């Protein structure tokens, strides 16, 4: 797969996910996919690391049970060989509380044989947790 083919695949995958085309996403995942999110476990409805296609699909289903994706705007898509890096501006609604959260997420993706085999996401996890809780956290000052 060329870099431009991969770039097209990344765009199509996000478009498919946005319109609810779960079959596209299911076909995209490699059987040995590893899904990682750098955030405190308290902020996530799934483990920080999930391995294997059935497990990742179940994890995404679990996420869908607790939050609704209101908007997922691609801000940046970079491709280099078989890897991609994406920055999204994401808006979620917490189903239980109706609370709306907005954050940016950076996701690094590795593809093998045209399928996503690794996904690693970064976000401002403190801000995300505070938005999910609905209040700011109190903590000592680290730097003056």
């Amino acid at each position, binding site marked *: 797969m060329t870099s431009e083919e991969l770039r097209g695949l990344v765009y199509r995958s996000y478009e498919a996910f946005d319109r609810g085309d779960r079959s596209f996403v299911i076909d995209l995942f490699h059987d040995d996919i590893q899904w990682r999110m750098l955030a405190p476990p308290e902020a996530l409805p799934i483990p920080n690391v999930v391995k294997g296609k059935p497990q990742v699909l179940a994890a995404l289903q679990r996420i869908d049970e607790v939050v609704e994706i209101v908007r997922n705007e691609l801000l940046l898509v970079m491709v280099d060989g078989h890897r991609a890096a994406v920055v999204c501006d994401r808006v979620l609604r917490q189903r239980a509380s109706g609370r709306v959260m907005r954050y940016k997420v950076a996701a690094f993706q590795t593809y093998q044989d045209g399928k996503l085999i690794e996904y690693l996401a970064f976000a401002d*996890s403190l801000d995300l947790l505070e938005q999910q809780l609905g209040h700011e956290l109190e903590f000592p000052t680290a730097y003056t």
Partner: protein
Amino acid sequence: MTPQAIREYIDNWYGAHQRGDAAFFARMLADDVEWTMHGPPQAFPVANTLYGKAAVLKALKEIGEALNVVRNVHREVLVDGDRAAVISDRTVIQRATGRTMVYRVAAFLQFRDDKLVSYQAFYDSFDMLEQAIGQPLDVPQVYQT
């Protein structure tokens, strides 16, 4: 810039960062550089957003005064056109406390005319904050897992 030139730039950047080479950053930053940290100053000692070379140089100096970078390892470097994305595993020592902090940071860079015009970094700010204050934060579980 060619992809190779960008990769060399990145190698030089992080080396300069580790040795606190202020002159390197003074040469490499565009006058209108935009700098974004996706995390609060409480976790990492720099404002969320900075604009302009002078502001970024000042912030880099302040970071150097607060943190000593003892190790920086590139885990991934992607180059696409005039942009780069880098994942680094970094070890720093908080100078005031001697506390060692280890974190992974994802940085997105954009270059123009051989200078850095945009930088944004993502990291697990909650974990970084806990390391910076030297204690875990007691927070409730938001969701049932």
